[in-house]
């Protein structure tokens, strides 16, 4: 399978990438690792006429301690996240979940920013960022803005990014973590989650988010309310499907997804240390 023809431009800086996006508007797509975009282009589900390759912007590939949060460059690859000692210590949920994405070959190329910007509800890391209460930094011709993860995922494969904006950084608050869990249910090792759950319990923060339970990654707000109200894991898990709209597909009916969500939320809460 071969993608439709396009013009290829490699950006040597964030500014150059933004200038190319400004020049080409809706016709252009950013290419990072390519592991979400290229498969869609091969199926001709995406037909951009210009690809702006930002994959060599190594100055956007980092994990840094930024005081009250960990700052991660958008071009940081899953393999970097999986093996970074600072991240493993400060945000073990993200470090672990990055190691569950796809397979080693995918993790060598795929990037955190690319996965988030693609905004696929079946992807692992968007839900992880929601559970952690993180935010994203977008850079455009008029400067930078910070977007809360809860405002970022606006629809199926749609995000709050403007066509001329580049995602540059992801920020994850440093939490005083009591426990965390990432549950991914799939048929083959490398598959997308049929349903997934990211959970973190910390001092002053409870985060639970769902993979593949609607057209966007979702915060399980009913579960969070229940946990904050003193419910145990089983009681809280009963509220896992509140606000969800799971789709049916070859892997699962909506009802089966709802069942999985309840089971996986319970397991995630238990693994996070909630009785």
């Amino acid at each position, binding site marked *: 399978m*071969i993608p439709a023809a396009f013009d290829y431009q490699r950006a040597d800086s964030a500014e150059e990438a933004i200038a190319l996006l400004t020049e080409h508007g809706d016709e252009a797509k950013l290419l990072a690792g390519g592991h979400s975009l290229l498969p869609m282009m091969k199926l001709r589900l995406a037909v951009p006429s210009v690809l702006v390759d930002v994959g060599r912007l190594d100055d956007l590939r980092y994990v840094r301690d930024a005081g009250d949060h960990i700052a991660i460059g958008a071009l940081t690859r899953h393999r970097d996240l999986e093996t970074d000692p600072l991240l493993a210590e400060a945000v073990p949920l993200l470090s672990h979940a990055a190691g569950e994405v796809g397979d080693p070959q995918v993790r060598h190329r795929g990037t955190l920013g690319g996965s988030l910007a693609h905004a696929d509800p079946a992807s692992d890391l968007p839900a992880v960022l929601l559970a952690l209460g993180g935010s994203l930094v977008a850079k455009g011709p008029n400067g930078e803005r910070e977007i809360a993860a809860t405002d970022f995922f606006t629809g199926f494969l749609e995000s709050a990014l403007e066509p001329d904006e580049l995602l540059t950084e992801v920020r994850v608050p440093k939490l005083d973590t009591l426990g965390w869990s990432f549950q991914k249910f799939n048929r083959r090792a490398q598959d997308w989650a049929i349903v997934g759950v990211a959970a973190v319990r910390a001092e002053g923060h409870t985060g639970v988010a769902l993979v593949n339970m609607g057209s966007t990654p979702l915060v399980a707000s009913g579960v969070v309310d229940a946990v904050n109200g003193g419910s145990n894991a089983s009681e809280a898990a009963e509220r896992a499907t509140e606000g969800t709209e799971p789709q049916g597909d070859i892997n699962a009916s909506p009802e089966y997804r709802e069942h999985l969500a309840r089971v996986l939320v319970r397991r995630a809460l238990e693994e996070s240390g909630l009785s």
Partner: protein
Amino acid sequence: MQITLTVNGVERTAEAEPRTLLVYFLREQLGLTGTNIGCDTSSCGACTVHVDGESVKSCTMLAAQADGLSVTTIEGLADGDELHPMQKSFQENHGLQCGYCTPGMVMAAVSLLDENPSPTEQEVRLGLEGNLCRCTGYHNIVKAVLAAAEAGS
């Protein structure tokens, strides 16, 4: 566009459309047909090569993305007539049946041991999760990788 790669230690330049996937560039422009195309959807791993020393699925990377980088294919592993230890281990442990997944499996296995020279059996199985063997010859493939790790330590 003109694309230059260092393939198996030799600089190679060829013309290709920007949409050319790395696997097609290797096979059709450079004539290196050891890398197989299997599923063409980044699932099966038959097309695994190394880019700058790390395993990637060459059906899910543009040749343009690899421009200026170093690529190793299955043809680049052996030293003349002397097989790479991983190839030898696949041979000795009967780590292949039909052989279609083998080039990708070997490349993934070499990358795995580069990152984790002494893996457990479970780590080998997880490390090869991106490679499918339709003969289901996994047991001997895992044996081959463990034996290569043992021999290398």
